[in-house]
């Protein structure tokens, strides 16, 4: 069913999607294949290295980055279902190899071919989805995707094709939700204060669904909404686009 003429894509699943919400990974595979790509998931991958990078441990980050470079060298593109991890590879790996000419060219090649999944589908594949979702959603733009990669119009354009879905604007859509990777672990009270601002704004939209492009942020907002007793469906955009948002949303009760 795959089209062999299409781009050869290595899928980078991200550690949070891998361990918490595989549905996002499978939805991505489905859409990428539907868009005409040949997709493979190299098993030598773990994490992009952000926890070490953001903690200032550059040596460990470099070791992980080398592993990622090797695992994804054979592919034409690397596609990632997270703006933050895509940006780590695309915009930040360079800092690690600035003094390492042997690896620098390999790193540059990797960075140049790495894409966040929603922008890959639109900007590279010119893909039009066909999906149905009944509801009113609001959209949160996660920081790295928005600011490092310019992912803003792409998800909205894709969602415009989903039947039954209306998207309402979110005040402060471009403001951080307070996840920040290790930040939410190191400064839980601060992180809570920031996500509380966010959920207040989300609730004010009256939408029944919250969408975004980064599982870390979605997990943070969904977890807070759930604790506040707010019944809200929370999905990664790709799940809706792939028609795979029929199960429970993030933090929602399981269906029996």
């Amino acid at each position: 069913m795959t089209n062999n003429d299409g781009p050869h894509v290595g899928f980078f699943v991200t550690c949070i999607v891998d361990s918490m919400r595989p549905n996002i990974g499978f939805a991505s595979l489905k859409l990428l294949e539907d868009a005409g790509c040949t997709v493979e998931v190299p098993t030598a991958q773990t994490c992009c290295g952000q926890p070490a990078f953001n903690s200032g441990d550059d040596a460990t980050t470099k070791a992980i980055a080398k592993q990622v470079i090797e695992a994804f060298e054979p592919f034409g593109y690397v596609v990632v279902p997270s703006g933050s991890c895509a940006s780590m590879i695309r915009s930040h790996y360079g800092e690690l190899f600035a003094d390492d000419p042997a690896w620098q060219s390999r790193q540059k090649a990797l960075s140049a071919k790495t894409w966040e999944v929603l922008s890959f589908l639109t900007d590279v594949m010119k893909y039009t989805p066909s999906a149905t979702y009944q509801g009113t959603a609001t959209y949160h733009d996660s920081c790295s995707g928005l600011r490092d990669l310019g992912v803003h119009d792409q998800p909205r354009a894709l969602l415009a094709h989903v039947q039954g879905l209306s998207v309402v604007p979110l005040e402060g859509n471009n403001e951080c939700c307070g996840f920040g990777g290790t930040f939410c672990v190191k400064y839980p009270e601060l992180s809570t204060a920031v996500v509380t601002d966010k959920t207040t704004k989300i609730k004010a939209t009256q939408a029944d669904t919250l969408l975004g492009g980064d599982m870390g942020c979605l997990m943070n907002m969904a977890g807070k909404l759930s604790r506040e007793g707010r019944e809200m469906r929370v999905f990664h955009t790709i799940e809706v686009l792939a028609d795979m948002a029929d199960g429970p949303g993030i933090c929602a009760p399981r269906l029996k």
Partner: protein
Amino acid sequence: MKQTSHQFNENVARALAEPTLKVALDRTTTLLRTRRAKVIDAFPQYAKARETAQKIKDHTLDHLGHYLRQFEENAKANGAQVHWAATPEDARQIVSDICRAQNAKTATRVKSMLGEEIGIAQALSDAGVERVETDLAEHIIQLADDPPSHIVMPAMHKTHEQVAELFAQKHKDPGDQQDIPSLVESARRELRPKFMNADISISGANFLIADTGSFVTITNEGNAELTTTPPKTHIVTVGIEKMVPSLKHAAVFIRLLSRAAIGTEITQYTTFYNGPKRDGDRDGPENLHIVLVDNHRSDMLSDFLRPMLRCIRCGACMNHCPVYAAVGGHAYGAVYPGPMGSVLTPAMTGLKGSKDLPNACTLNGRCKEVCPVNIPLPDMLRSLRARQFESGMVTPKARWSLKLWAMLATRPALYHFGTSVANMMLRVLARGRGKISAVPLAGGWTRTRDLPQPEAGTFMQQYRKQKR
């Protein structure tokens, strides 16, 4: 002010427990964000101006020694006396010596963060001089005996209701408590008489202009002019990085500053000072002293923190920072708060006493986005973390968890085993409810947030199964 960055977490807890603070911060940051967005949208050459500003600053920093010498020469030719202060102590000494030599009793001061940085209040009290803050917000915090909490709006932490209460206690004629203009009038009545009778005026400068030896102040209240004109002696304390080569270059920054700071196209008062009173001038100070302060700026020149010296102190980074908006400026426990302060404080007073500052940031990048001179604040904060890591300033717990994670992350097979175990354990904890409300070792998260129940089996497990 007393630096309390070393007890950042206590400061944060105190700030979060203060409900009025959040009201004050929300009101002002929301207003400033909206207004800034509007004037930037209406400034078609914004991107170009920002790029030009960055280039001018980088060029000036590349040749800072040259421009400083040029400035000194021209300022002296204009009749000013130029002093060099390597440290805040030096600066305080110079200021108090001048006050003593003038036998000064009172000084009016127009807000300047550099004055705060070098401890001007201390210098004046050492010289036995009574200090009168003339900026409205500085007047408020002087009455309240508070340190400033913002570099442009020092009283950002106070609501107007709190200000009304304060004036009712401290002003002779406090005005109508419900009416903001009436409160402003009240402050004006308090301050006006003091302007005319001061012996010394103390100001900062927004820009130094090398080829004319002049300097610039930019305010909305006109208090700079009122402060610096009547007294016999005017002392300017200013950081050496405020230099620009010429008037034409200063204009580029003036167009950016008020837009970024308070979301207006221009401020009410922009004054260029070109030396003391000359023969035939009706007013102005007889003595003009310019104190050029280093305080680690030249160390930053040769460091990855160099771009920080582009800063024009507009405060946009703090107005758009989610952490600042949650806790306000006092939590940072230093003269400069918010994103720029989290870079400057470690640079000026050392990483040891401020180790939380570079870490207490989500690296969301909004500060860099709104900075009119494009300072890569998140990158510098991260580099400071790397510097901390290299010098072993990381807590044993953090180091340990990082080591464990690194051990797994560099061994894919072990890693996939580990994630599948974690996935299974989390499902046990969730007991089919879709969410987990308490996770051992993740108490920080689950105290206020649920954790989602993971799906059955990691992506890798399921993917492998499908492939088989």
